[in-house]
C-alpha cells in the first residue's frame, strides 16, 4: 500500500504513534489494557458527536448546536422517563432520546433548508434557544436518580477484567453504539445515493442543483440526522455519568469540530473521511487523558490541543498556498 504523505490522516496517525511511543518510554505502564479501555471510553460520546459534525461539514455547513441538542435531550429524556415511562427498557430510552434529537434537528433543518439561512448563524441561534429553553422552562437541577432503563444501560459492559496488579478495567457497552453509528454513517455516505448527494452539495450547491439534486431535502436530512446522533450521544453521556446535568456538554462543540477538521474534513465542504474523524477524535482524547504521562501538567492541555489544531490545519493550508503560488 502506498502511503500518501500529504493527507491529514497520515499526519494525525503519525502524531498518535509518536505520542504513544513517547508515553511508553516515559512510563512503560502506559501500554496496558486499562489505558486502552480508558481511551476508548473517552471516545464514545466524542466519537458520536464527531460523526455528526463530519456529515454537516461534508454537506458544506457547520453546526454548533449539537451539544445543546444533546444536553436538552438527555435532560428531558431522564425527566420524562422518570415521571411517566419508568418501565421503558434501555433500548427504548435510547430511541426516545433519538426521537427528541430528531425533532430539535428538524428545527435547524427547517431554518436552514426551508428559509435558506446561513448554517453558522442558525445553529448559533438555536444553541442559545435550546439551552435557554431547557434551563428556563424545564429545569436547572441535576437529575441524580436516572430512570431504570438508563441505569441499566449505564451498567452494561462489553468486556470486564482484572489486571495482573489487581486493578480493574472495563469497556462500556455504549462503545458498540459508537461503532454502529460509524458503520451506519459510512454506509450512508458511501453506499447510498443520498451520500453522493451530500458530497455533491458540499462541493458546489449550484452544480448539485443543476444535476437535479433536491438540495433542500438533502440538507433537511443532514440536520435531522445530526439531531438524532446528538440525542443518542446525550442519553449515552447521562447513562455513563449516572447523572443528567443540564450544564454538561455545551462548550464542547468547537473542540469536536476541531477534531473533525484535524482528520482532514474541510470547512468549505465536500471533503472528509470517517477514518480521519476517528483519528482526530483519538488524538484529542489521547491529549486530554494522557498528556500527564509525558510529564506535561494538565494545565497545559488546551495549549497542546490548540497547537495541534494549528499544525493540523496549517500544514495543508500552507501546502495549498504554496501550490497555488507555483501554478500562478
Amino acid at each position: 500500500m502506498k502511503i500518501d504523505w500529504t493527507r491529514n490522516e497520515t499526519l494525525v496517525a503519525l502524531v498518535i504513534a509518536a505520542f504513544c511511543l513517547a508515553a511508553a518510554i516515559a512510563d512503560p505502564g502506559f501500554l496496558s489494557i486499562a489505558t486502552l479501555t480508558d481511551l476508548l471510553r473517552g471516545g464514545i460520546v466524542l466519537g458520536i458527536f464527531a460523526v455528526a459534525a463530519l456529515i454537516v461539514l461534508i454537506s458544506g455547513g457547520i453546526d454548533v448546536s449539537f451539544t445543546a441538542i444533546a444536553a436538552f435531550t438527555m435532560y428531558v429524556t431522564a425527566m420524562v422517563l422518570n415521571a411517566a415511562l419508568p418501565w421503558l427498557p434501555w433500548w427504548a430510552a435510547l430511541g426516545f432520546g433519538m426521537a427528541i434529537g430528531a425533532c430539535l434537528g428538524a428545527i435547524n433543518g427547517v431554518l436552514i433548508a426551508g428559509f435558506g439561512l446561513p448554517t453558522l448563524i442558525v445553529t448559533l441561534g438555536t444553541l442559545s434557544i435550546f439551552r435557554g429553553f431547557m434551563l428556563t422552562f424545564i429545569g436547572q437541577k441535576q437529575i441524580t436518580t436516572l430512570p431504570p432503563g438508563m441505569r441499566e444501560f449505564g451498567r452494561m459492559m462489553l468486556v470486564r477484567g482484572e489486571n495482573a496488579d489487581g486493578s480493574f478495567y472495563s469497556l462500556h457497552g455504549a462503545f458498540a453504539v459508537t461503532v454502529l453509528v460509524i458503520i451506519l454513517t459510512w454506509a450512508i455516505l458511501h453506499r447510498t445515493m443520498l451520500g453522493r448527494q451530500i458530497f455533491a452539495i458540499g462541493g458546489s450547491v449550484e452544480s448539485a442543483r443543476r444535476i437535479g439534486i433536491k438540495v433542500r431535502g438533502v440538507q433537511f436530512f443532514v440536520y435531522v440526522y445530526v439531531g438524532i446522533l446528538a440525542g443518542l450521544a446525550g442519553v449515552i453521556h447521562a447513562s455513563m455519568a449516572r447523572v443528567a446535568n443540564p450544564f454538561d456538554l455545551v462548550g464542547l462543540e468547537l473542540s469536536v469540530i476541531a477534531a473533525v477538521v484535524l482528520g482532514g474534513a474541510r470547512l468549505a465542504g465536500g471533503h472528509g473521511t470517517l477514518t480521519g474523524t476517528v483519528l482526530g477524535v483519538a488524538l484529542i482524547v489521547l491529549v486530554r487523558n494522557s498528556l500527564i504521562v509525558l510529564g506535561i501538567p494538565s494545565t497545559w492541555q488546551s495549549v497542546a490541543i490548540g497547537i495541534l489544531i494549528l499544525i493540523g490545519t496549517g500544514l495543508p493550508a500552507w501546502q495549498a498556498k504554496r501550490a497555488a503560488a507555483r501554478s500562478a
Partner: protein
Amino acid sequence: MTTATQATPMTRLFASTEGRLALITLVVFVLMSALSPDKFLSLQNFTSMAFQFPEFAILALAMTLTMLTGGIDLSVVGIANLSAIVAAMILTQVTGSGDGVAVLMMAYAAALAVGLVAGLFNGVLVATLGLPPILATLGSGLIFTGIAIALTGGSAMMGFPPATAWIGNATLLGIPAPLVLFAALAFAMSLLLTRTAFGVKVRMYGANPLAARFAAINIDAMLIKVYVISGALGAIAGMVVMSRANSAKADYGSSYLLLAVLIAVLGGVNPYGGYGRVIGVVLAVLSMQFLSSGLNMIGVSNFARELIWGSLLIFVMIVNTWRAKGRRS
C-alpha cells in the same frame, strides 16, 4: 415592489437593515418601559446598563472588523483574559507608590502589548500561512486561554491597587467611564471603516477577494492589520472586565464569544464579508441590553435571556432574507 411605495420615508427606513434594527430597538425600549415603567425608566437603570454592556460591545466591534473581511476572531475572549492576567500579575507583584497609577499604566501597556502580539499571531496564521480564520482563531484562542490557565493554575487573581477600579466603575461628567471608552472606540472604528483607504480595502476584500487581489491591494498586510486591531480591542475589553470584576481569571466572559458574534450578525454585518456598519452594531448592542435589563426587572432568569437572544437573532435573519428574496423576485 412598486416605485410609489419605495418613495415614502417609512418604506425607505424598512428597506435598510439598520432602519429595521432601529425600529426593533425602539420597540424593545417601549415594550420594556411599558412592562415596568418605574424601574426601567429610572436613571439608576440607565446608569447600570451603561456600565454593563461596553465590555462585550467592544468585543463585538472586534468581531465586526474581522467579519467584514469574511473572517471571524474566535480568540478575542482568550486574548481579553490573557492580557488581563498579564496586567494582574504586574499589578499584584510590582508595588508602586501612592495609589498605584504608574504601575497601572505599566500594566495597561503590557496588556495592550499582549493583545497586539496575539493579534499579530492570528494575522500571520490567516494571512501568511493561509489558515481558515475560524480554525486559526479557534486554535490560537485555545492557546491563549491555555497560557492564561497555566500562568494562574486556573484560579482568580485579586488584590489590585485602587486606581484599577477607575476604567470600569468611575463616571466622567456623570457618564460611566466604560461607556465613554466604548463610544470613543465605536466612533474611531466607524471613521476607520468609512473614511480611510484601509476601510475601503477591508470592505472590498470582504465583498470580493479576487477583485481586491486584481486591484493590487496588499491583502496580507491588510489582513494582519485587521487581526492586530481585533487583538488590541480584545485587550481593552479585558481591562474593562478586570476592573469591573476587580479580579482576573482564565475563564471570565466565556459566554461573551457567542454573544459578540450574535451582536455583530444582529447588527447587519454579513458574516461572509463585505457589508457591515458600526451604527448597526451599536443598535444591536442597545437592543440586547434593553431586552436583558428589562427582562431582569420583571423577574426573568438569565437563562431566558439566552433563549430570547437566540430567538431575536433568528427572527432578524428570517426578516432580512425575506426582504432580500422579495427584492430579487
